[in-house]
């Protein structure tokens, strides 16, 4: 479904040049959920931005459904691939009602039956019709993230890119949003690419994941390996230990990577 090979991108020039993503390759099957995990600055979100079309000076190949995509995307691409952002407070237009936010993509892509689609997608993300004409400031963080998911779904895409979709939320809300994402995936047979710094979230959501550090891929592991702690690289092992909570003795053994 999604095939990335030798993806590279750098920012800046000369001495300040920063090679943010180095030769990343991976494949995601239809219906699979794939994780990109790493610490800040590891380039995981940059990879996502290259796929989504937010960044366009990358090199390498990105194939969706076997078809290579160019730097400049057309409308058909956006119908296939959608993204959910990290911060629900920043990703909704503050002066647009939920209704307008959801109708805008339909207008761009000349969909018919607009009202019906809006109602349907709101039901799908468990938001009642009483939310439809509210402004984002009248919603809680979890409700906003549901709207963001609805916005991504309304174009009926096949791939959804998730950029730390729950890291700005309280844990109890996180559980609701993660459940929702799992349900929708099953229902619509969607393909997910999810970025997260949280191994537990990745382990829960994904079948396979790539561990990234400083722009490069450290290793590719399956959820099974992750759950059993069956890891090969020291970097991943350290990340795994750190995710288990505070252990004074273990910390002294931490290395800088």
């Amino acid at each position: 479904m999604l095939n990335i090979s030798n993806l590279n991108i750098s920012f800046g020039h000369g001495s300040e040049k920063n090679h943010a993503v180095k030769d990343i390759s991976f494949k995601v099957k239809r219906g699979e959920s794939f994780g990109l995990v790493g610490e800040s600055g590891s380039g995981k979100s940059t990879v996502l931005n290259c796929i989504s079309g937010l960044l366009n000076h990358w090199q390498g190949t990105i194939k969706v459904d076997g078809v290579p995509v160019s730097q400049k995307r057309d409308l058909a691409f956006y119908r296939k691939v959608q993204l959910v952002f990290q911060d629900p407070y920043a990703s909704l237009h503050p002066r647009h009602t939920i209704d307008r936010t959801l109708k805008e993509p339909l207008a761009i892509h000349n969909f018919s039956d607009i009202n019906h689609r809006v109602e349907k997608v709101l039901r799908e993300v468990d938001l009642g019709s009483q939310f439809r004409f509210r402004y984002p400031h009248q919603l809680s963080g979890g409700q906003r993230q549901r709207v963001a998911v609805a916005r991504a779904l309304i174009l009926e895409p096949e791939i959804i890119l998730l950029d730390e979709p729950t890291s700005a939320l309280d844990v109890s809300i996180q559980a609701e949003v993660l459940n929702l994402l799992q349900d929708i995936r099953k229902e619509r047979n969607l393909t997910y690419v999810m970025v997260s710094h949280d191994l537990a979230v990745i382990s829960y959501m994904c079948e396979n994941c790539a561990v990234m550090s400083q722009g490069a891929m450290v290793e590719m592991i399956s959820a099974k390996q992750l759950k059993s702690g069956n890891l090969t690289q020291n970097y991943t092992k350290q990340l795994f230990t750190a995710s288990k909570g505070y252990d004074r003795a273990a910390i002294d053994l931490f290395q800088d990577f």
Partner: protein
Amino acid sequence: MILEEQLLQVKNLNIIFPSPKGDVHAVKNISFSLGKEKIGIVGESGSGKSVTGRSILRLLPPYAKISADKISFKGQDLLSLSEKQMRKIRGREVSMVMQDPKYSLNPVRTVGKQISEAYIVHRKATKQEAKEHTLKMLEAVRIRNPEQVYRLYPHEVSGGMGQRIMIAMMLIPDPSLLIADEPTSALDVTVQLQVLAILDDLVSQRGMGLIFISHDLELVSSFCDRIIIMYGGRIMEVVNAADLHKSTHPYTRGLLNCLPRIEGGNERLSTLVRDDAWLDADFSAPSVTVSG
């Protein structure tokens, strides 16, 4: 844990923020006490945990209404002190590390100057003495090249380094209580643990008390001695960290259960069902009745 010395005692603390839409009761009748130990205050956003921390230092905006039967620190009633007396407490006796060093350091002063200032304010030291102590303190928070870091500006240091600088700044006057308000939430996990280890070492070496405010229940339970769990401005329960997983309070249980786990399966996560009855119940009551 048995406490030989009480550092801080809070009794029936109430904090109200007046707003045009009616008063917001941010903290309601909470009481706790603390010795030379690490105590964690855990809660979701809006639970009143940060406000509680700030109220001890009396650093809430002037329109906030704080009332309590008692906020006593080493036997001194903090609420009755004048602003001038309070300044002698701040930094010197009770200090605070905030969430993001990006915002909590003055952007146009060098790191060294800012740490020195904390020393000079309380020790009436010369600039040279302050500098020497600052360099030592930077070393104490395991910064390898203190002379160079001294001259840097906040935007030139990483998040982890920034937070170590904050810790150095807040510990240099040698206070006996440190309030850490989400001190590592903006950091990566490994850096987060390294900063906590530094904090842990310094706090135990100096025999200080620590209030650790966080939203991360698992982290707090592995780091602190005792945990105060807050919800909606109330204390739900106070548990020893070791006994957290034995807790029966529905809110604590809910928080624990809704977390995905690395080694866990892929079955639906259980979600937290909130209950307004929690807000009226007294946390010290042995059993909590859950309705609905």
